[in-house]
C-alpha cells in the first residue's frame, strides 16, 4: 500500500516536471530571436500548405492561444511535419523509439550485471593484484571519451579486421529477402549491435564496478556478516548470499543518477554507428535545422529519462524494504 502511494506521488511529480519542460520548450521555440513561423513550417512548402499548417499550429494567434493549441497538438500527437523527411514527426519518432530502447536497456543491464559481479570479486580480493587490475581497468575504461572509443572500435573491428559492419542496424539483403524469418532478422540486428553495445558497455561497467566494490567493503563491516562468519558459514555463501545483495543496492541508485549521462552516451553512440535511434535523430535534426523533429525527439527523450527514473526509484524501494518514502 505504502509503495503504491509512493509510486503515485512520483508519477504526479513526473507529470508536473514534464509540463514544465513542455512549457519551457514552447517558450524557447516561440520567443527566441528569429522568426518562430520559420521554425515550425517547412520553408520548402507551397504557400497554401504553409498557411494551412500555420492555422493548424495556431501560429497566427496570440501567444496564450498558441500555447493551448500547442498542448492540444501534443496530446493528440500532432508534432508537425519533419522538414527533412516530409513525414509527420510522430511517425518518425515512434519508429526510432524501439531501436533506442533496445540498445539502451541492453547496455545498461549488461554493464550493471557485469559491473556488480566484477565489483564483488574486486572487493573480495581487496589490496591484491586482482583488485588493482579490476579497479584500474574500470577507472581507465570509464574515463575513455565515448565518441573516440566508438571510432576506435570501428577502425579496429570493422576496418582492420573486418569482423563487424561499419554502420547501421540491419543488412538490406537479409531484410529484403522474403525467405529470411524472424530468427535470421534478429541475428542480423544482434550482429549490427555488437560494436555499439560493446562501446556503451566498456564506458559504463567501470562505474558500477567501483560503486559495487566500495559498497561491498562497507557491507562486509556490518554485524550480520560477523554473525554469519561466527555461525561458520562458508565464505562464498557469506559473499554471495549475505553481503552482495545488500551491497548491490547503491548500484541501483547510481543507475538512476547516471541515466542522464547514459542518455548522452547513447546519443553519441547512435550517431557514430548511425544506429537509427532517437538520439541520432535529435543530433541529425539539429544539424539540419529540422525544428519540429528536434523538438519532438527532445520531448520523447525527456519523457524516457523521467519515466526510467521513476522505474529505478520504485525498483529501489521494492528491493530495499528498509526504505519507505
Amino acid at each position: 500500500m505504502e509503495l503504491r502511494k509512493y509510486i503515485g506521488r512520483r508519477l504526479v511529480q513526473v507529470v508536473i516536471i514534464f509540463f514544465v519542460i513542455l512549457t519551457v520548450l514552447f517558450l524557447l521555440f516561440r520567443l527566441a530571436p528569429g522568426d518562430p513561423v520559420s521554425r515550425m513550417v517547412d520553408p520548402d512548402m507551397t504557400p497554401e500548405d504553409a498557411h494551412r499548417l500555420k492555422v493548424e499550429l495556431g501560429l497566427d494567434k496570440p501567444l496564450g492561444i498558441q500555447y493551448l493549441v500547442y498542448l492540444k497538438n501534443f496530446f493528440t500527437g500532432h508534432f508537425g511535419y519533419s522538414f527533412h523527411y516530409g513525414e509527420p514527426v510522430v511517425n518518425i519518432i515512434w519508429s526510432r523509439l524501439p531501436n533506442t530502447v533496445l540498445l539502451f536497456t541492453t547496455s545498461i543491464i549488461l554493464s550493471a550485471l557485469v559491473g556488480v559481479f566484477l565489483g564483488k570479486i574486486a572487493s573480495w580480493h581487496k589490496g591484491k593484484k586482482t583488485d588493482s587490475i579490476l579497479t584500474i581497468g574500470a577507472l581507465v575504461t570509464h574515463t575513455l571519451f565515448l565518441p573516440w572509443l566508438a571510432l576506435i572500435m570501428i577502425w579496429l573491428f570493422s576496418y582492420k579486421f573486418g569482423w563487424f559492419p561499419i554502420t547501421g542496424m540491419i543488412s538490406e539483403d537479409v531484410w529484403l529477402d522474403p525467405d529470411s524469418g524472424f530468427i535470421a532478422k534478429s541475428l542480423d540486428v544482434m550482429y549490427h549491435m555488437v560494436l555499439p553495445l560493446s562501446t556503451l558497455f566498456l564506458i559504463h561497467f567501470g562505474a558500477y564496478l567501483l560503486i559495487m566494490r566500495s559498497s561491498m567493503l562497507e557491507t562486509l563491516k556490518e554485524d550480520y556478516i560477523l554473525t554469519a562468519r561466527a555461525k561458520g558459514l562458508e565464505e562464498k555463501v557469506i559473499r554471495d548470499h549475505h553481503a552482495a545483495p545488500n551491497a548491490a543496492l547503491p548500484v541501483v541508485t547510481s543507475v538512476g543518477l547516471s541515466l542522464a549521462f547514459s542518455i548522452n552516451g547513447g546519443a553519441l553512440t547512435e550517431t557514430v554507428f548511425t544506429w537509427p535511434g532517437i538520439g541520432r535523430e535529435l543530433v541529425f535534426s539539429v544539424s539540419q535545422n529540422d525544428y519540429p523533429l528536434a523538438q519532438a525527439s527532445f520531448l520523447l527523450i525527456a519523457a524516457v529519462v523521467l519515466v526510467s527514473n521513476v522505474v529505478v526509484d520504485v525498483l529501489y524501494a521494492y528491493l530495499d524494504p528498509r526504505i519507505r518514502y
Partner: protein
Amino acid sequence: MTVRERFPLLNSFLDGWSIFKQSLLGRIGLVLLILFALMAVCSYIPPLIDPMYNPMTGVDPAITCCTPPGMRHWLGTDFMGRDILSQLLAGARVAFMVGISAAVMSIVLGVAIGMTAGYMGRFIDTLLMRLADMIMVMPTLLVVLILAAVFGQLNIWTIVLIIALFRWPGVSRIIRGQTLSLKQRPFIEAAKVAGASHSRIIFQHIMPNVLPLAFLFMTFRVTSAIITEAALAFLGFGDPGTVSWGMMLQWVWKTGHMFKAPYWLLPPGICISLITLSFYMLGRAMDEVLDPRLRKEDQTD
C-alpha cells in the same frame, strides 16, 4: 608561534597535502595534470616559431593533404596541412579554460543554492530542490543541442555558461545536506542569539564548513564540462573559432580520414581520456583527504 599555527588555513592545507601525498592515484593524477598544464602553456610557442604552426589558420604551403609525422611536423598534419601538435597543445588550453570556468561557475551556483535551501528551509527549500531534481535528470549534452537548434551557433562562453547552469544540482544537494546538519550545531545558535543576520550566518559560519566538500566536487565538474564541450564539438556544434580536442576529432571523422590517418585520430582522443582520468584520480585522492572513513579503511589494511 610557528608559521603553521599562525595560518590555520595553511595548516589544514599542509595536513591535507600530507594525506594526499600517500595516495598513488592522487600522485599520478597530479603529475598528469601538470603535464597537461605545461601543454597548455606551451601552446603559445608554435605560432611564434612560424605562422604555419598556428593551430587554426596556419597552413603548411608545401603540404596539401594530411601527412604522417615527420621532422617538420612532429605529429603530422591534418587534411589542410595544419600542424596536429600545435592543435593538440591549443586543445589543452581550451580544455582547461572550459573545464575550470564551467566548474567554478557551477560550484558557486551549487553552493549558494544549496546553502540557501538548507538554511532557509520550508517553501524555498522545496522549490529549489524540486528545481534541482528537474535539472538533474536532464541530459546536459542534449539540452545544449536543443539550445543550439533554437539559437544557432553557440560560442564557447555560451556553451560554458549553459554547462554551468545545468550542472549545479548535484553539488547543491550535498551542500544542502551539510547545511542542514550544521544548522543544528550550537555555534549557529550562538551566532543567532548574538544577533547575526541570515547572510552573515550563511557566509561567515556555514560557508567555511562546506567549502572543502565543494572543492572536491569541483574536480568532477571539471571533467564533465570538458567531456560535454568535447562531445558537442565532436558532433559539429562547437565554437568554430576554437581548436578543441573534440573539434579535432570532428575534423578527422567528418573528413573521412579516420581509417587513413591513425596519427591524427589517436592523439586528441587519448588527451581527452587522460585529462578526464587525471581529474578523476585527483578527485578520488581528495575524497580520501576529506572523508576520514575512507582513510582509516586504507590504513588498517
